[in-house]
């Protein structure tokens, strides 16, 4: 079962309803897309991410009403450094989609999804704690895993993993 090469051409992926819906709403919000190993990833501009989520949630033929997960990947030292990853699930159609938001290292902030899904609360705190990505509008942007007063964000790639503090 060899894997097929990833499709990254927006034109080819337009038939996907999730992407088509977002493109028809605002073509500038979608910066790229990828279909790899049966999983669709849509790169969304960070100003539009909250609205894009609301649209995917509200569109009756998509109904992405369940927030699975929010996490982040650090691509240090390349820029834009961070990639926030949002996994959505449609409980009705049992389909999944992944939204990605690229964030630069010196301005790692994006809007919070807590107004749309209260479930985002813990996930965003975790990403803030371990990556230092700030979520604007979050009700309680404090560390969740590490102790209060911890220095640095452990899951960043430039965080020292040996030596003395």
């Amino acid at each position, binding site marked *: 079962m060899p894997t097929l090469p990833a499709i990254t051409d927006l034109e080819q992926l337009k038939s996907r309803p999730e992407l088509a819906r977002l493109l028809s709403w605002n073509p500038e919000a979608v910066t790229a897309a990828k279909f790899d190993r049966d*999983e669709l990833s849509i790169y969304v501009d960070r100003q539009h991410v909250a609205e894009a989520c609301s649209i995917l949630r509200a569109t009756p033929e998509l109904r992405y009403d369940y927030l699975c997960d929010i996490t982040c990947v*650090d691509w240090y030292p390349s820029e834009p450094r961070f990639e926030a990853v949002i*996994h959505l699930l449609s409980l009705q159609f049992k389909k999944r989609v992944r939204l990605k938001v690229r964030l630069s290292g010196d301005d790692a902030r994006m809007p919070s999804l807590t107004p749309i899904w*209260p479930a985002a609360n813990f996930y965003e705190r975790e990403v803030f704690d371990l990556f230092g990505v700030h979520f604007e509008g979050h009700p309680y942007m404090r*560390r*969740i895993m590490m102790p209060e007063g911890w220095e640095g964000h*452990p*899951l960043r790639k430039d965080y020292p993993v040996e030596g003395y503090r």
Partner: protein
Amino acid sequence: MAHLTQTPVLEPGQDRTMILNMGPQHPSTHGVLRLILEIDGETVVRMMPDIGYLHTGIEKTYEAKFYQQCVPLADRMDYLAPMINELGFCLAVEKLLGLEVPARAQWMRVLLSELTRLNSHLVWLGTHAMDIGALSMMLYCFREREDLLRLFEAVGGQRMFPSYIRVGGLAMEPPIGWLESVKKFADRFPEAVDEYEDLLTGNPIFRGRLMDVGHLSTADAIALGASGPTLRASGVDIDLRRDAPYSGYENFQFAVPISHRCDVWGRYEVRVQEMRESTKIIQQVLAGMPEGPIKADAPKIILPDREKMKTQMEALIYHFKIVTEGFTVPAGEVYMPIESPRGELGFYIVSDGTAKPYRVHVRTPSFANLQTLAKMCEGRLIADVVAAIGSIDIVLGDVDR
């Protein structure tokens, strides 16, 4: 949705309320969970879970390990369902690799998953009932759990963390007679569930403590990201084993128990029914277990058998290379969700084409389910908090990772 967003600034010294720390060393919190309660007499006004006491940085550790070294770490997250965590990790890596696992290995994985689910639900039932006051339930449940742990020990060499499911298949053939032992267990187990139900289901004290406690409406459960039995007991009909079958679950017939009660009793009913359904799956696996290899044919990824390694040159070379350099995984990313006893367990793995994962994130069900706790408890009595914690069945290793 504003009513679900926590407003956790808890300041004592107001006229009526006081702050109470429940945990982190509280027996009914099932681990090192600290709950900060704002209470008015016996009533919980607000609650905030404080977690991280068991944070061991497993996601960071993954980035420094070869893929085959990651499997034991997966065990140690949800220590009540180790094999299901291993399975989630291995399925994700296999999806990245595009590796097909032989039928016998898939069926064995289903069998082990369901045994693990029983193991986990037994610990849940024993401790949950004990929290409520039915102390002897623990002894009954751990009696059956001991049999399960012996089965795990026989197959993987360890009781708690067998690391038996590997990328590409299983570590080795199960020992001779092991499947017969499982059969004996599965034949006997429904009677044990009857016994639990005799002790609990009709018990008026148990019913009184569970019914209409810890209410979580369907809309709130979805908005707060609950999954697994917690979501199904709020009336949402989803089970990844049926709706997104993995590892050959499409070959088995089983019902997905749901409840519309939305309370602790509903979660109790769902999990007890799940134990019965798991037993049915185990019986189906045992009846139709295919013959064949237990590992995929991929010598560059899977360690050779000991005998081959000591008699064949190529096998020795592959063994040396896998152990010293690991195996490389093509660049890409996958999110592999499976149904753990607690809900949706998702492994998100990013590979950069080397022998070590670039990033592993685990969407653990306990972490998400914990967010529902405040909603269940606010406005209720302190004693109901204990019932609600038991009903979402959290494992703190799974929450903190």
